[in-house]
């Protein structure tokens, strides 16, 4: 109540509300300061991006250089995320509102979602550098596009499925009351998609770190395309065997991730609770002190009143007037009809051309190339499944142990989260350093590297599943005196099965991706490699064998998509029907 009177008085006389002026100024100080910092960061970045490309990027190992590197990395992540967000909204809106477009956009999305993005890393980087010769911007854009392709699909899918599942009565209400497409988007569809979008954004950005680290360390043959950032810092530190710098780098990495979590994702989640589709208020609502700070801020409230609200008002009234003028018997399916047609036409032409060229390129593949691709596919397949098996073997007992003990889970959960938040690719150079010191080859090292990328998903899901095991069933097991083995077979394993499958699906996707950077590594000026599809891809890029690169990438994509369809989707269906614990 006090909040609303405050804003009302502020609205009447913006500058005379002196009571509590100092306190509110202090409250707004961090917000003003962060605004200035943001501006400064942008200036630095723009100067850097326009600078000419440095062919031998030098990465300084002094901890003092770290804030700058962190800024560059965060800027890449942010740019990629904004790009993803824009594409997500357009893609999802068109797919949800145009049934003709929907028919090919959704299967396409489904396929793109399961293709291992890192297999495109070499080709994307090369083409982007060619596009902007002599400017740092080219490599930067390459990394941004790559992160974008890694994170956009699940966001788009989430928004699309939210838009398709808007409750009928709300749709009917907006139809009956003649809402314009804009008002419907702003007041119904976007709010309904908000929660899913925030969660998927969080996951996407976490995945984005994984790709960013790989991009920043990228070396193409004798072109050093490394980007100054946390990833290249960590790699250089590992190269130099500088333990102090490695620790500094890791600390900076963790700090950045925790800061982003606290400053962006927590507030975003707390804010998105407003859009929860519920009829009764929930008791346990996520909160964020940062969000409270923003909500109480008078600077922001004033800016909102001065710019946001009038803009919203004008847009709404404008589209309402347009909607009113339209003849009601000529309903337009979507406001993006013409641009949509042009884009769809261009996309179709582009795809047709690309397929045409690809067939030509693939026709030049020799038998030995084909053999090495198939061999590599087999090796990588075994390596991925073996690392999943290893992950399952240690995470299931540990996860169940933690998950069934709420107190332990409360302690272990945040620690595991921070550990897991470090992108596996950031740890690659360090692991490599240790393993090579210990004398193992890349054959073993690559499995460890894959494991690094996969185990956490499984662990989290097992913990979640174990803590959701119903107490009454546990008591039934006690009452009937089930032995330990029976208990695992009849209760625990079936109970956590849906969670386990979810974990494995995510982990499998991650492992295929990681294989590209794990099987072929430049380290201390040497090239380590082992048999595998990832190695074939990386090697082909280094050697400039375009047709092998294409063929191997296509095989990997096809393999992953087929596995998803044939194995994981069926298991998931089984998990969500037969093994679902219903309340």
């Amino acid at each position: 109540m006090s909040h609303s009177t405050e804003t009302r008085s502020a609205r009447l006389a913006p500058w005379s509300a002196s009571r509590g002026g100092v306190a509110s100024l202090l409250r707004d100080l961090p917000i003003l300061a962060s605004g200035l910092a943001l501006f400064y960061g942008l200036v630095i970045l723009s100067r850097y991006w326009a600078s000419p490309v440095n062919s031998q990027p030098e990465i300084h190992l002094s901890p003092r250089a770290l804030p700058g590197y962190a800024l560059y990395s965060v800027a890449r992540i942010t740019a990629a995320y904004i790009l993803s967000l824009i594409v997500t909204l357009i893609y999802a809106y068109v797919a949800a509102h145009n049934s003709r477009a929907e028919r090919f956009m959704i299967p396409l999305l489904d396929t793109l979602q399961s293709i291992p993005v890192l297999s495109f890393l070499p080709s994307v980087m090369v083409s982007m550098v060619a596009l902007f010769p002599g400017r740092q911007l080219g490599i930067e854009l390459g990394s941004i596009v790559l992160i974008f392709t890694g994170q956009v699909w699940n966001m788009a899918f989430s928004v699309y499925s939210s838009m398709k599942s808007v409750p009928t009565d709300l749709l009917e209400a907006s139809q009956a009351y003649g809402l314009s497409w804009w008002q419907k988007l702003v007041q119904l569809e976007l709010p309904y998609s908000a929660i899913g979008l925030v969660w998927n954004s969080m996951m996407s950005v976490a995945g984005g770190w994984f790709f960013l680290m790989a991009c920043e360390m990228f070396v193409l043959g004798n072109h050093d395309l490394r980007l100054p950032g946390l990833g290249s810092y960590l790699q250089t530190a590992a190269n130099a065997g500088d333990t102090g710098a490695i620790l500094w780098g890791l600390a900076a990495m963790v700090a950045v991730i925790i800061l982003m979590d606290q400053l962006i994702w927590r507030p975003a989640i707390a804010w998105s609770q407003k859009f929860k589709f519920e009829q009764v208020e929930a008791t346990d609502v996520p909160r964020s002190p940062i969000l409270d700070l923003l909500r109480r801020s008078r600077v922001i409230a004033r800016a909102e009143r001065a710019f946001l609200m009038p803009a919203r008002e004008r847009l709404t009234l404008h589209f309402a007037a347009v909607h009113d003028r339209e003849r009601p018997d000529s309903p337009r399916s979507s406001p993006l009809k013409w641009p949509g047609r042009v884009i769809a036409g261009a996309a179709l032409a582009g795809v047709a051309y690309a397929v045409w060229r690809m067939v030509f390129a693939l026709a030049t593949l020799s038998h030995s190339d084909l053999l090495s691709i198939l061999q590599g596919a087999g090796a990588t397949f075994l390596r991925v499944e073996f690392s999943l098996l290893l992950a399952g073997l240690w995470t299931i007992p540990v996860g169940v142990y933690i998950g069934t003990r709420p107190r332990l889970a409360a302690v272990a959960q945040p620690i595991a989260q921070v550990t897991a938040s470090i992108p596996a690719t950031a740890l690659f150079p360090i692991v490599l350093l240790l393993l090579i010191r210990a004398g193992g080859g890349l054959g073993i090292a690559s499995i460890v590297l894959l494991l690094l990328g996969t185990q956490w998903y499984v662990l989290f899901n097992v913990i979640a599943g174990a803590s959701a095991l119903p107490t009454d069933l546990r008591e039934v097991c006690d009452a009937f005196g089930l032995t330990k083995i029976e208990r695992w077979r009849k209760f625990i394993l079936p109970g956590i099965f849906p969670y386990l499958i979810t974990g494995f699906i995510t982990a499998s996707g991650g492992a295929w991706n990681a294989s590209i950077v794990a099987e072929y590594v430049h380290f201390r000026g040497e090239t380590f490699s082992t048999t595998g599809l990832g190695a074939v891809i990386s090697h082909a890029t280094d050697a400039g064998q375009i047709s092998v690169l294409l063929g191997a990438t296509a095989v990997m994509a096809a393999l992953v998509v087929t596995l998803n369809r044939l194995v994981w989707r069926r298991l998931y269906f089984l998990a969500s029907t037969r093994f679902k614990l219903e309340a």
Partner: protein
Amino acid sequence: MSHVTPLGMSISQGRWEHAAEILERLDPAAAAEAFITLPFEDQQGLFRKLPIPLAAALAGDLPYYQTYVLLHSRPQADVIAIVDAMNPDDRVQFFDQLPQETWQQLMDELAEGPEAASAEEAAKAIEAGAPVVAPPVHEEPIIEARAIEKSFQREGSGAIQVIAPTDLAIEPGVIVALLGASGSGKSTLLRMLAGLTPPSGGEVLWHKRPIRECRPNAAIVFQSFALFPWLTVLENVEAPLEAQAMKITDRHRRALRALSSVGLKGFESAYPKELSGGMKQRAGFARALAVEPEVLFMDEPFSALDVLTAESLRGELLELWLGKKIPTRSIFLVTHNIEEAVMLADRIIVLSRNPAKIRADFRVPLAHPREHNSPEFLLYVDYIYKLMTQPDRQPGLPSAAPAARMPYPPLPNIHSGTISGLLELLNDRGGKDDLYHIADDLQMGINNLLPLVESATMLSFARTDRGDLELTPTGKAFAEADISTRKRLFREASLANVPLLKHIYSVLTAKSDHRMPVEFFRDILQEHLSEAEAQQQIETALDWGRYANLFAYDSESERLSLHQAAPAEETESVTRA
């Protein structure tokens, strides 16, 4: 109704005049006898066509409540003429039997005299032919539906008709209630009238213009409130006004006025989830009233509320309406609650199912406020109960054959256990009770009770008789039996009376391995029903069939199989154990 009389024949052919002639040729007692055996909708249709003297003669012989309702399905001028033409003794008896208030009401109408309604228009309405005759026409209708129908296209196998061609007109100044059991298509009818769903055939006119070409000034109140949970109450009410491109200050004023008219002042900045159900629906009303609609559509607006809240909201709505505090000229209410319809409506339309068509359309000339337990109120409630529990007439002659007929009468979506419960209750009541007593005791709306009654009668465990439900001898035996005997009785009853179960059973018996995927039967059903409906039929059939030990079902392989042991032995062994 089993034998086809010349009277029934001419009615099913739509030859009302001929039917009237047949009646005229009979002597009065026989005419009344023949008339009363007709289905209600035919009684109403025919009564409208009868010449005044014959109508008056029949009016004297029918039960008083039926006379009263039938009278009010004719224009007011006719009502007066018929009452005047009645045999004086019958008239005195009719007046005597009427409850005090109803009598008073009728007296008032008679005193108004015939000039209140134009006889010419009434005659025109009668000539229109269809069994639907609008109440006295004073003004141009706001909405006019001409032969609107709705069918859903099915993949491969034609269309299913959910609403048969229907004529309907909504005049200003009345509250119209559309009554029907759930799944009867009443919400679809509302959506077609409001322009939300286009009809598959026919057209809807708003002020004589096709609804597609104009933006009808209508508002809808939803059963589920349909409020945007992320907008405050005020923003919710303002949303339709924003859509009309109304300026912010006007919008505020209009929304605040609407909110205070429904008693939500002070809740402007609350979010819907902070409100109780009643308050949410008030916000729903405020949103509808803020656009100042010409016609206010309400789709089961009180069904999601508890009894007391619903009661008080109904009262407030009536107060706004009767006090002319809202510019709305007509209200169209969809409901399955008979008492609610009688409480609010000036005109009641009763829908039948599969496909939906109008069974009855009559005025409720009772003065407001209406008392729940007053005799004239109960007169209408009782009448509608009888109307709705009387089975639908199969469409007789080829005149109106829809696309494809269901090979099986649809199973009501009721659990076998619930049927046992009803039969036990009925047995405790001495084997027979009034339907609305039962509904009252079970706290069930007609929505839930009707399918239950339907399933009991389908199995021949009970029968309906003019608004009463009565146990049959098998039903009584069932109610008093132990579990294994019950299963046997249920098995016999379903094999004898439920074609779908009989069919499943015979297919399983005929097959050498006595097994069949359930998909097979679902496919057959899906030729006539939507996917969801077919699924529901299958689920009910599974429940009944498993209870009756007709077959076993394995949900993993989705296969039906015959029980291994012969069922008679099996039940005996269970009894012995």
